[in-house]
């Protein structure tokens, strides 16, 4: 009873909480250590983020945003099969089987190299490839994440796919039901049948939503890249500007000193004048800087646009002009006509270098001669007056 209540509460915000918080918190307490030297916050691999992008689906273990798998690892690890521990073997690595039992790599090698063999703990038949790295301390969480990930792939309908909130909530409830059954191994056969039925019914929708998700992830990535480029560009400009300003200031100072040296005018006036000049210059620079910003905005709007209309592969010609087969062609050997004789002979050699192509002229002549021959005669000729004019004639009557 309490279980079903708990389940019910969760399904109300099912979209956001994909794993029970209570168990996650224990895992967050900080026993996890990342392999591969990643220093990012472990929170980035919380299950609900795993849900959000398609790139995170992985055979085992959970990938974080940068694509690395974080692996659970603690000092008092011990292989339940051979009982060797981290004290004896500092390189001990425990992997999880598909029946969620841990064992060390050497045990796996020992037991499964020769082909499928029963699990030493629950005697389910396993293969060597069925082992995956462990991400969570609690294997229950590991299992739930795997199941939820699988379910989310199939049951990916969105709010837009339903007519009203009620039916959407019913759907979420059903999804939660199935997930719960799979996690706790209640009516597994029947539940699997339900999944298959759902898949058969909604194959097209599932595929579409999958593509939508991919497109979204792609757009997000592109957006990030543009922002990065833009930031770099701006930083470069800023640096250059600072440099310029510094030079300007120094030049201004030198100018004042020079003028004070050579001119016999009032010193205060001179200083004020030079200052005013400098102010004018900096204002001009500021104006150009604002222009720069606008160009950055332009770039951004382009990036936003680029996700809307996709670029299509090149189509050489967009009409069907060459689709018609010509019933004629120019003779390979050329023509012995009088008009082109001068060109063909080209005694002075003035035509060869210019690239005049008599073939082009022949082709044109042939085409002009026969181009319209296949056009059927115009049947049912319109009256000579066009429709506009006829109405104009009739209007006053």
């Amino acid at each position: 009873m309490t279980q079903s209540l708990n389940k019910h509460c969760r399904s109300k915000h099912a979209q956001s909480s994909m794993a029970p918080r209570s168990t996650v918190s224990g895992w967050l307490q900080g026993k996890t250590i990342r392999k591969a030297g990643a220093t990012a916050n472990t929170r980035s691999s919380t299950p609900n983020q795993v849900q959000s992008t398609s790139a995170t689906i992985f055979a085992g273990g959970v990938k974080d945003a940068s694509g690395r798998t974080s692996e659970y690892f603690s000092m008092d690890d011990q292989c339940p099969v051979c009982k060797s521990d981290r004290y004896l073997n500092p390189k001990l690595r425990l992997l999880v089987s598909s029946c969620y039992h841990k064992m060390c790599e050497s045990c796996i090698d020992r037991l499964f190299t020769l082909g499928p063999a029963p699990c030493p703990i629950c005697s389910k038949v396993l293969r060597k490839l069925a082992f995956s790295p462990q991400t969570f301390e609690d294997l229950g969480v590991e299992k739930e994440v795997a199941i939820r990930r699988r379910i989310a792939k199939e049951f990916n309908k969105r709010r837009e796919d339903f007519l009203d909130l009620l039916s959407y909530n019913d759907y979420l409830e059903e999804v939660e039901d199935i997930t719960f059954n799979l996690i706790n191994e209640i009516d597994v056969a029947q539940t699997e049948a339900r999944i298959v039925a759902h898949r058969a019914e909604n194959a097209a929708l599932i595929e579409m939503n999958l593509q939508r998700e991919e497109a979204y992830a792609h757009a997000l990535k592109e957006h990030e890249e543009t922002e990065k480029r833009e930031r770099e560009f701006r930083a470069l400009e800023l640096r250059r500007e600072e440099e310029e300003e510094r030079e300007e200031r120094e030049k201004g100072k030198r100018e004042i000193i020079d003028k004070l040296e050579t001119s016999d005018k009032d010193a205060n006036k001179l200083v004020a004048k030079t200052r005013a000049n400098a102010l004018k210059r900096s204002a001009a620079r500021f104006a150009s800087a604002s222009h720069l910003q606008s160009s950055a905005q332009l770039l951004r709007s382009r990036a936003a646009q680029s996700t809307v209309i996709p670029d299509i592969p090149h189509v050489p010609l967009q009409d069907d002009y060459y689709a018609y087969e010509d019933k004629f062609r120019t003779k390979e050997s050329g023509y012995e006509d009088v008009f082109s004789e001068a060109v063909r002979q080209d005694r002075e050699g003035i035509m060869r270098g210019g690239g005049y192509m008599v073939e082009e002229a022949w082709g044109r002549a042939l085409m002009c001669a026969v181009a319209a021959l296949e056009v059927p005669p115009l049947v049912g000729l319109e009256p000579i007056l066009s429709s506009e004019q006829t109405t104009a004639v009739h209007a006053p009557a």
Partner: protein
Amino acid sequence: MDVVEKANLDRQKRWIKDSKAGEGTYAVVYRGHEAATGKRVAIKKIKVGQFKDGLDMSAIREVKYLRELKHQNVIELLDVFSSKMNLNLVLEFLDSDLEMIIKDRSLVFLPADIKSWMAMTFRGLEFCHRNHILHRDLKPNNLLIASDGQLKIADFGLARDFADPGFKMTNQVITRWYRPPELLFGSRYYSSAVDIWSVGCIFAELMLRTPYLPGESDMDQLKVTFRALGTPTEEEWPGYMKLPDYVTVGQFPKPSLRDLFTAASADALNLLNKCLTYEPRRRISAREALYHSYFFGLPYPTHPSKLPKCAKQVAASRPLEDLNGNVEKDATGPGVHAKNNRLKRKLSSPVDEPKGRSIARRLDFTK
């Protein structure tokens, strides 16, 4: 009133002039809109009266070719009508050009952006060449950018159709910095490859953000070109020493493009190299260029709507002297060039195309 006049009046009523946007030697450009829909257009009023021998050649060319061409990457001529003594061309309204964008230092170009612009340029050019028309004045200034980012080839004032065998064409075309060496050597018989050279120069300019081959005179242009790409050998470009205005410019070694375009991909350099090939017959064609591996590789060309754009304010706050200098030839380009470039890219000499091509219908301005 006869039928022609009435039709002309109807057309005239469809378009409303708003404000003056620029003035050139032979045309004034106005902003305007369509009366019925409010669609923004540019109206180019060509002054007729002051010319003894009728309309200016480039106006005729512009009408002649733009009437026929309709493509996403070519400026659209919506309508033509006459008013009093003037001829009015109604063109698509395009607010910026590639040159403004290249010069705008606040914009950052990604390799994908350049790829997108190049693809659109080649598409537009391929369309012109497919219809046997040489543009002959490609430069960033003439590649206009629509508000949805589409690039459009504009200013067909120097365009012409492919010459029949043995007919001379003028070599005094294409703004100098974008002019291929065969024209600099005075060739009167050339092909669509001249436009490709210009596109190559534009490609380089997009990568460098500064003109690639800025020669100060025709002679200097050759020198600058050879210094950048090496003096061609007879093998590389057979027969070029026999061209009418051939002069020896000096021997320059062939430097590696990689030294200048340090950030460009290998594919991009390969395409650039093929556009800037000396031998016109070996130069890549617009259609081949569109199938070049540069365009298919990653990154994909940017979607036109996401290409960098000139901020409107930047255009508005341009110094006045630039506007006043706007009486040069290129101000008469279609679309609205509200400003002129500081460097004054202009044709070095007037066009002396032999007049002889027939005009479909004589225009009567004597009313």
